[in-house]
Each structure stands twice: as structure tokens, then as C-alpha cells.
């Protein structure tokens, strides 16, 4: 278990360094810079040449852009590790760590609520489909899961909006200030994962129900609850933990679109903004941070799996 953990942590570290290097290289290959974009947008092109050159030089210094590339990379990595990344281009008055500290909890709230919602719906649905195999329950659940799997969250969000905002006038279409605002984004994100989890739950439970130890449990005189819920479900929930990792990753990425659609001030919103304005410090940091969060979640899920399965726990 410890060796497994060390190996996984090592891999995660290498992957993160790789991602940061890749991000960094890409950003510096980019033809235009934020400063160009800013100059053009502020109509400074035809202005005082000398003044704008001075301004640029000053800004370059402020963001460390006058240093050689390898030094810039090291500075950037140092800043990440020390959690002191300096100001963003787009929001000079705010440091990047402040932005993340403000926006990340919003995204996490969204993602966690969505996962919780999808599990709460998907697990009973999967059980029902597995226990009532080849009935309308089964087909219905699997049809829903197919739809959920093939339609992205932002399209689902559209239909939710048309229903709840336009038809029923129950919910506002955007914002993040009152509890009402949470409902639609969470539904849109969560419902998309229901399909995958339910389908997995069904397969895994059907597989468990076929095992010899289930026949043995029936032969001991178990009732439906004891055998199906106590033995089979218990064992099929353990591998379910492993799909939660990828689902969480999918949801984290999904927050980017959902936040953009519902104008939620989460990390995804800042990521989008950074990409659109070529705010490279913010874009790099949020990318690496996203990667870190997703890999970290996968690691936690794997550890949880190890704890739940005694065969792995004792090794």
C-alpha cells in the first residue's frame, strides 16, 4: 500500500512537471501577447511610441518577462510551490492566489454537489436495473443513461433553462448569489453523470449477483435485503469508487462550461476569461491547478479503493 502510494505520488509529480513545462512552452510560443492585446484594445497603437514602449518595459519587468526563459519557468514554478504567483494580467489589482482562493471553492461546491446528486440518483437506478434485469425498468434506466452519456451538460442546461426559467418561471437563468442559483447548474452537471454511474452500477451488480458466494448466501437462508443489499451491493459498490475518479474529473472540466453559461464566478470562469484575453499567468496557473486537483482526486479515489477492499488493504 505504501509502495503503491509512493509510486502514484511520484507519477503525479512527474505528470505535473510535464504539464507545467508544456503549458509554459506553449505560452511562450504564442505569437501575440497580452500586452499587444491590451495595447490594441486601449487604442494605444497610434499613441506616443516612446511612452507605450516605456509602459511595456515597465510591465515586462513587473511580470518578469525580461528574464531568460528558463529563469522565468523556475520563477513561475517557485511561485506556484510557495503559493505566491504575483498579479494576473487581466486583474492587476489581484494576485493569482487570491483569485484561486476566491474562485476554487465555488467550483468545488458545484462539482461536489453534482457528484452527490448523480450518485444519489444513479445508484438506486443501477440497482433497480440490475435486479429487474431485462424489464422496462432496466431498459428505461439504460436509455436514460445513454442519453445522459451522449449529451453534454451544457446542452442539458439549455433544456433545463427552457423548462425551469421560461416555462415554469421557477429559477433564474444565471447568477450565484442565492441558493436558487445553485439548482440548475448542479442538475445540468449532475444528471450528465447519472448515466455513466448507473450503467456501471448495473454491470457491477449483475456481475456480483452471478458470483458463487451469492448463491452460497441464498443457500444460507438470506432474504433479498441480506443477500442483494448486504452481500452483492456491498461488493459492487467498491469498484464503483473507481468510476467516481473519472466522473469527478469530467465534472471539474464540465464546471468550465456550466460556469460560463450560468455566469458563476468559479475557477472555470476565470480560466475562460484568461484564455480569451491571453492572460498567460492566470491561464497557466489555472491549468496546472486544474490538473493538480483532478490528479489529486484520482489518487484519493484509488486510496479509498484500497481501503475498502480488504484484499488490497492487507497487501
Amino acid at each position, binding site marked *: 500500500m505504501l509502495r503503491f502510494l509512493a509510486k502514484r505520488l511520484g507519477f503525479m509529480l512527474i505528470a505535473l512537471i*510535464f504539464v507545467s513545462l508544456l503549458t509554459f512552452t*506553449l505560452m511562450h510560443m504564442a505569437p501575440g501577447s497580452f500586452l499587444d492585446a491590451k495595447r490594441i484594445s486601449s487604442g494605444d497603437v497610434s499613441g506616443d511610441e516612446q511612452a507605450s514602449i516605456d509602459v511595456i518595459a515597465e510591465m515586462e519587468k513587473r511580470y518578469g518577462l525580461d528574464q531568460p526563459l528558463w529563469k522565468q519557468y523556475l520563477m513561475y514554478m517557485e511561485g506556484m510551490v510557495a503559493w505566491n504567483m504575483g498579479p494576473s494580467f487581466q486583474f492587476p489589482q489581484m494576485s493569482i492566489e487570491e483569485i484561486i482562493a476566491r474562485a476554487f471553492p465555488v467550483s468545488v461546491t458545484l462539482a461536489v454537489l453534482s457528484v452527490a446528486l448523480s450518485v444519489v440518483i444513479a445508484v438506486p437506478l443501477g440497482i433497480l436495473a440490475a435486479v429487474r434485469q431485462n424489464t422496462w425498468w432496466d431498459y428505461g434506466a439504460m436509455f436514460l443513461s*445513454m442519453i445522459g452519456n451522449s*449529451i*453534454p451538460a451544457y446542452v442539458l442546461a439549455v433544456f433545463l433553462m427552457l423548462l425551469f426559467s*421560461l416555462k415554469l418561471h421557477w429559477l433564474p437563468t444565471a447568477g450565484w448569489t442565492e441558493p436558487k442559483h445553485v439548482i440548475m447548474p448542479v442538475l445540468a452537471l449532475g444528471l450528465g453523470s447519472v448515466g455513466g454511474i448507473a450503467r456501471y452500477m448495473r454491470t457491477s451488480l449483475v456481475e456480483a449477483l452471478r458470483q458463487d458466494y451469492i448463491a452460497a448466501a441464498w443457500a444460507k437462508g438470506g432474504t433479498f435485503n441480506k443477500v442483494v443489499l448486504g452481500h452483492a451491493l456491498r461488493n459492487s459498490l467498491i469498484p464503483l469508487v473507481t468510476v467516481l475518479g473519472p466522473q469527478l474529473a469530467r465534472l471539474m472540466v464540465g464546471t468550465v462550461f456550466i460556469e460560463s453559461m450560468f455566469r458563476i464566478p468559479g475557477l472555470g470562469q476565470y480560466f475562460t476569461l484568461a484564455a480569451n484575453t491571453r492572460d498567460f499567468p492566470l*491561464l497557466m496557473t489555472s491549468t496546472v491547478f486544474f490538473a493538480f486537483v483532478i490528479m489529486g482526486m484520482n489518487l484519493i479515489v484509488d486510496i479509498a479503493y484500497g481501503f475498502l477492499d480488504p484484499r488490497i488493504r492487507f497487501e
Partner: protein
Amino acid sequence: MWVRAWNKFKRNKLAVFGAVFVTLLMLTAFVGPYLLPYGYDQIDYTAVYQGPSVKHIFGADELGRDLFSRLVYSLRTAMIVAFGSEAITLVAGVAIGAIAGYIGGRTDNLLMRFTDIMFAFPSFLFNVMLIAVMGRGLFTIFVAIGLTSWVGLARLVRAEVLKIKSREYVEAGHAMGASNWDIVTRYILPNVTGPIIVTMSFGVPGAMMTESALSLIGMGVAPPAPSFGALITAGQRFVLSYPHMLLWPALVFAFTLLSFTWLGDGLRDAFDPRDN
């Protein structure tokens, strides 16, 4: 293999539906633009915000552009991006997977670690970065998607190559003096065609989703060129007053994705070697 797969596919109603709709959608996307009465950027100030009518069957947008035309062009964008990126995926995935599986040893190890890293890193973020760097455009979008979506295919091809490599007829081929290239192209690749087709058929709607997601956050094709994502973003602004601008793009897009999924599901079942 082909005959059996075809027979199984034919019996799957949803898959046949999917195949028919996909064909129709492709015709619409590639032939449709020549038959449309309006261009996607043709402005008609008399039709601004108009709901569905005889003149504009899906209505018009805030500039009076015909929504139906814009949807047809969106479909075209989605198809070009999907097929373009799948072509890159196919070449990269098969090459990397086949090389790793066939040569093995250190090459395999290195390539697979690289694949692992690519797999752990959410490809959408990578796409956004690539486009932020390369600039927005049809070409950059499908290149970006292609560069990030070969991982699954490479793993699959590698696993299949490893499995087939050790079979007797491949060893017999070796013994008879076939070159490595011969072995890979004549013995191994024909055997992995089924799984590759299945993976690719799921890759198409995947790439379409990525494309529209990119335009949703403003990183897709540049306006005024339409895309499902851009239409949804635009429609969403007017959802309470002009819902047709949101409803139609979402419906058509969802339907397109579903058709491809049905087709993919059917292909997967048809090529499934486990049952007969």
C-alpha cells in the same frame, strides 16, 4: 468478420436509425449549404428576433440572420472538425500504439508513460491552451482536438498488437521472412480494424462536443461563422424573450450527437467478439 458484423448491425433498430440519420446529417452538412436560400451571415433587418415562419422556418437571430442556415453551417463546422480531428487521431493513435506494442521494450515504456500523462491531464484544458496559442480557426481547432484525443486509440491498438503479435500465424509469417512492415500492415492492422472503427465512431460525437464547448466559451470558430456552441451562447442571452434562438440549436445538436451515439453503440455490439 464483416459479414457477421453487418448481419448483427442490421438487426439493431436503433443502430440502423443512427446510421440513416448520420447519413442524412452528413448530406445536409456538405450539400445543404449550396441549396440554402440565405447565407449564414446574411443580415435581414426586417426579420430580427423573428420566430419560426414560412420565410425562416427556425426563425432568425438578433441580426435577422436565418437560424436554419446558421444551423446547417454549424453542422458543417462540427462535421469538418470531427472528421479532421479523427483523421489526426487515427494516424497518431495507430502509429503510437502500433510502434509501442510492436517494438516493445524501452520504446514501449517511454511511449506508454507519455500516454499515461496525456491521459491524466484533462484534454479539454490542453485544447483551450493550444487554441489560445495558435489562434482561433477551423484548422487550429481540429488540430488541437486531434492532438489530444489519440490516447485511447493508442492504448487500444497497443493492447491488440500485443495480443496478436504472439499468435502463431504471425510467428509463421516471421519464419517465412516477412518484414516488420509486412507483419504490421498485413497481419496485425486488419485484425484491429473492428475495435478502431468502434473507437472512431465514438470519437466523432466526442470531437463535436469539444468543438461546441470551445465555441461556448469563446474559443471556437471566429464569428460570424456559426457553431452549435456559439448559437447556444447567443440564444441563451435571449432565452426569456426569444426562446426559439436557444431551443433549435440545442435540439439539433442533441439529435446529431444521439444519432452518432446510436451508430457507435450498434457498431460496438456488431464488432463485439464476445458473443455470436
